[in-house]
C-alpha cells in the first residue's frame, strides 16, 4: 500500500467521525492527531461502531487487544494500524 492510501484512509475516517460523532463540525477542526477516545469524542459504545466501520471498510479483523488507545485514539494511528494489518494479511 502506498502513502496515498494512508491519506485516503485518514480522510475516510475523518468523514466518518465527523458524521457520527461531531455533526456540524468543520473538517479542519478534526486533525490527524486530535485525540478521540481520551477526549470523549468517541465513547466506549462509539468505539464499537468505529471498529465495525473500519473492519467492514478495510476488510480487516480488529482483535480486542488491538482496540486500545494506542491504535484508536488518533486518526493517524488508526490509519497506520489499518495499513499494517492489511500488509500483514
Amino acid at each position, binding site marked *: 500500500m502506498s502513502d496515498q492510501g494512508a491519506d485516503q484512509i485518514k480522510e475516510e475516517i475523518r468523514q466518518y467521525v465527523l458524521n457520527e460523532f461531531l455533526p456540524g463540525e*468543520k473538517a479542519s477542526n478534526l486533525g490527524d492527531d486530535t485525540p478521540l477516545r481520551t*477526549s470523549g*469524542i468517541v465513547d466506549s459504545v462509539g468505539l464499537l461502531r468505529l471498529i465495525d466501520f473500519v473492519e467492514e471498510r478495510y476488510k480487516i479483523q480488529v482483535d480486542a487487544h488491538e482496540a486500545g488507545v494506542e491504535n484508536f485514539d488518533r486518526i493517524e494511528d488508526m490509519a497506520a494500524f489499518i495499513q499494517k494489518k492489511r500488509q500483514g494479511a
Partner: protein
Amino acid sequence: MSETSYPVANLCAYLEDSAARFSDRVAVVDPDGSSVTYGELNERANRVAGFLLGRGLQPGDRVGLVQPKGVTGVCAIFGILKARGAYVPVDYTAPPERIRSILDNCRVRAVFADRRCAAVVADIETVVMTGTPAGSDSESLPQGAFAWEKVLRSQPGGAERGSHHLDDLAYILYTSGSTGIPKGVTLTHRNAISFVEWCNSVFNANELDRFSSHAPFHFDLSILDIYLPMKQGSSLYLVSEEVGKNPQRMAAFIASNRLTVWYSTPSILSLLAEFGDLKKYDFSALRLVLFAGEVFPVKHLRSITRHWPAPVYFNLYGPTETNVCTYARIPTPIPDDRTQPYPIGWPCSHCEALVVDYDLKPVKPGEEGLLYIAGPSVFAGYWGRAEDTAALFFERDGRRWYNTGDVVKEAPADGFIYVGRRDRMVKRRGYRIELGDIESALYRHQKVSEAAVVAIPDADAGVKILAYVATIPDAQLSMVDLKIFCSKVLPAYMSPDAILFRDSLPRTSTDKVDYQKLKQESAARVESSKT
C-alpha cells in the same frame, strides 16, 4: 420571628406608614424619569381602591396587571391591596393565549392593562386601560373600559382599617413549572411580610437607599424590590424592559441614579460585567448587590465583583413558593482558582429547613437529600390545584414542610450547597449526573460565555446529553476544542454527546435560560438524527 411581632398587619400598611413619615420623599421613579412621592403614591392608591370598591370588588377578588413596568403598576398594586383584592401580574409581552389562560385560570374580576393588550382583556368585567392612548383622546378606549386618568379622579377609598387579615390572599405569581403549564402560586400578606421583615433585619435599608427594580412584577424578585423600600421610605427606581435587557444602558442607569441596592438574576449581572462598559461609570453609591433565581457561574461572579469591589454580595435562594428561604453572603474578592459555585447558605431566620431522603428520613449532615422548607413565607397553595399542592407537602412536628424539588447537602462551614434540581438529574450508564455540573465545567472554559445542558430520553443510549454554548465575542471555539476540554475537567460519562453553538441562549421573560425551548429543540434534533 413570632407573628405577633410583625409591625404591620398588611402590605399596604408599609406604604401608609411611610406616607405618614416621609410624605414628600420620592417613593417610585418611573422608567420615563417622572416620579411620585410617598404622599402622592398613597393618595393615588386610595383612589384606585375607591374605584375598585365602587365597581363591587369583594375581599379576595383577583385583579390582573398586564402592562409594562411603571408607576401606574405600583399605584394599582397598592390600590388593589387596599381594597382587599389580590393582584395577578402577567407578562404583557407573552402570547395572548398565555395571558388569557392565566387571567381565566384565576378568574380575575378586573384588569389594569396596557392599551396594546386591549383585545386580550376586552370581555373582563372591569377593564382599566393604561399607557399612552393610541389616539389623542379617550375615544380610543374600547367599549366599557375605563381610562386610568379617570380612575385617578375617583373618590378615595379602601377597606375598613383593621379589616385586613394576615392570611388574606395578596398576589398570585404564575410560574411555568417544569411541565410548561402555568401554575398560580398564591401568596398571602403573611407570606410576604414575614419575608420583608427578614430582609429588613439583614440588609439594613433606610430612607436614603435607592433600590433597583429590575425583575418584572410577575417574578418573585419583585417582592423584595417593591416592599422593602416601601417599608423604609427608600426610593424605588423602576428599570424598563428595554433598559433591563441592554447592559450599557443599564450600567448608565445604575450609575446616574446612584443606586445603592441592586437585585437581579445572575444572568443580568453577567451581562453587565461582560458588556456593560462598567469602567466608564462611577458606581460608588452601590452598597448591596443581591442575586437569585439560578446558579451564578463563578467566572461571571468573579468578573462583576472585580468591576464592583465595594458592595456586599448575597446569594439568595428560594422557589417562588417560599420566596427567599436560604441565603449566603459571598466573601470578596473571589479567589482566582475557585470554580465551584457558591453555596446557598443557611436558612433565613423566619424559615426552617429539613434535608431528607426519598423516604422522608433526615439524611446525615454532608449527605445529599431533598430540601424541604417550613415557615410563614411558605405559600398557601397553587390556585385551583389542591392535589398538586398536597403532593408537595408533608406534616411533621406540627409544621407544613414544602418540597422545593432541589437537592442539597450541608457543609459545616458554608451551610447548604446546591446540588441541583431533582428533575435535572439523569442517569447514564449507571452514573447519576447533575446537568448543572456539566454547565459549571463548560463555564470554566475561557471562551465560553453561556452554557446550558439538557438531557433527552433516547431509545438507544437511554439518554442523550446536549450542551448549548455561546462564546465570548469573536472567539474561535470548535466542538473538538470543547470536547477535549471536557475530557480534562469531567469524567467521561459526563461529557456531552453533542455540543451546539448559539450566538446566545434563549431566555424566559424572567431572564432564566429557557430550558423548555432547548429541550424541544433537542428532542426534535435527536429524533431527526435517527432518520
